[in-house]
């Protein structure tokens, strides 16, 4: 069985977001990590490797420095890694990103493609389902559990909704988007870390993408266009008091609630 996991390098927001003095986001001060939902997807794939000997390929689209998340995936146990990088792919929206990744995936054999539900920088959750559409595959989003029946060539997924879950069965090949709740990703192993720097990352550019028109790539191939983007300047500081007693604190709050006609 062959599993491809699509991963993304994102700035880390977990350790706290850093701001510049003017209140805008300081991206340079934040670490780059493997997107959490994608890491859960990779862990799910590695469990299929443990269980069925599946071959796990990780694929990312990004700047050359995204090599780092592929090395991390090697260290966790991935077998192959592909970096799709090219200047002409820059500025892509989700349509152009999914067209690019689909173009790369057309070169590969796969039974199952796993993506994270969403990346913590864009938060769109669109690229997984869009890839599945480009490749005419069934998609199951928001996976909390993934089970594979290798013989029947089907997957069974616990698909989360707001107030329920469905157990959904799909024929392979198919695409599943993983929630970070899916599992607890394993750590890199010392042997794995050693291997990670020995193994070779395959690098693909525009010319390696299969059956994708230029009109679907990069900024020019993006139907959506940014009219305005800004780091949101943090809301102006409100009042903050440190009363000496609970009574004082209560009087302060009740005073505000009365002033605002809440009570």
């Amino acid at each position: 069985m062959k599993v491809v996991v699509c991963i993304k390098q994102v700035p880390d927001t977990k350790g706290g977001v850093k701001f510049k003095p003017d209140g805008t986001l300081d991206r340079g001060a934040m670490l780059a990590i493997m997107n959490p939902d994608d890491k859960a997807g990779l862990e799910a794939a590695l469990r299929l490797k443990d269980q069925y000997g599946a071959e796990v390929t990780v694929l990312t689209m990004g700047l050359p420095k995204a090599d780092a998340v592929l090395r991390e995936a090697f260290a966790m146990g991935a077998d192959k890694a592909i970096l799709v990088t090219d200047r002409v792919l820059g500025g892509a929206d989700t349509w152009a990103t999914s067209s690019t990744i689909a173009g790369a995936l057309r070169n590969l054999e796969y039974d199952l493609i796993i993506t994270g539900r969403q990346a913590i920088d864009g938060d769109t959750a669109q690229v997984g389902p869009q890839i599945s559409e480009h490749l005419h595959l069934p998609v199951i989003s928001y996976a909390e559990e993934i089970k594979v029946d290798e013989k029947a060539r089907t997957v069974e997924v616990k698909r989360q909704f707001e107030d329920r879950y469905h157990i959904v069965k799909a024929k392979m090949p198919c695409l599943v988007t993983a929630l970070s709740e899916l599992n607890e990703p394993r750590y890199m192993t010392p042997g794995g870390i050693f291997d990670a720097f020995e193994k070779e990352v395959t690098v693909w550019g525009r010319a390696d993408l299969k059956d994708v028109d230029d009109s679907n790539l990069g900024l020019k191939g993006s139907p959506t266009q940014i009219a305005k983007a800004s780091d949101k300047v943090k809301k102006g500081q409100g009042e903050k008091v440190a009363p000496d007693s609970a009574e004082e604190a209560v009087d302060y709050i009740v005073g505000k609630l009365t002033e605002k006609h809440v009570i």
Partner: protein
Amino acid sequence: MSLEEYKGVFIFAQQVDNELSSIALELLGKAKSLAEDLDEKKVTAVLLGSDVKGLVDKLAEYGADRVIVVDDPALKDYRTEPYTHALASVIDEFKPEILLVGATAIGRDLGPRVSSRVHTGLTADCTSLDIGDFPLEPSPVRETKHKQLLMTRPAFGGNTIATIACPDFRPQMATVRPGVMQKIDPIKGAKAEVVEFNPGFEENDCYTEILKIVKEASSVADIQAAKILVSGGRGVGSAENFKILDDLAEALGGTVSCSRAVVDSGWKPKDLQVGQTGKTVRPQLYFAIGISGAIQHVAGMEESDIIIAINKDENAPIFDVADYGVVGDLNKIVPALTKKIKEALAAKN
């Protein structure tokens, strides 16, 4: 694609178990105000499901001028492929200028699949929608297009904000975050034009099979509808100690909600979680009690009208968004506050 052929604002009227989701009515409210700025003022709801015609009148009362109904057993429970086929076929046939979909667990799957099928752009999780020029300011290098849908969305856990347009493709599609747009006051007895449409459903390899549906007990309150939320975080300390928040909420006629840490600790169900991975709320009053204020939490509540924070850590980031911050021990302050509010309200009546 001739863009002029595409007319009118459409919304995907999400229903689950033959009950309209709140987001459907919220989208109608927004669609109505967007349509006022366009040439075509008619608002169309697209209703997909099995045996769902009974929902048409409610959509009319909340602002739909026309309802396109695709009623087929294949659409009984949500599955990506038949729903995509239905909605994409409606787009091909009726050519909307704008299509709004809720950013729900259904809409965030359906929206991208449909937008890919019809080859248009999709902007995710919008919190504000307007009609205006693109580019926003006249530009010497590109032609200004008027009456475009300008879609504003937060990214990066709410720390950046972008306004996005889709000038060259139709429909202009957005998923819209639940709880943000306002419903209109229902117009009793309002009727909509009903158009039945069935594109035919033929199983293919993309069809999935639902083996089981498990509803998770959701006897809990709808925190997105609450005017007052009393929200607790890790600092509350235990599931039992939420009692003091329950009491405060009761005194104020509010509802208890919580941060992710509380859900992770198993103290409260996920339905009550505010934040990026929970729900977005904007009540008139939001109490953040024992909540440190991680950006993921703040992203879900910062639009609240009044935010009052109580936290013993004077450096907690929640104080950066709070209108009124109180540094102190919630175990002492909250019960005393409940008592005082009860007294104040009793004195008033």
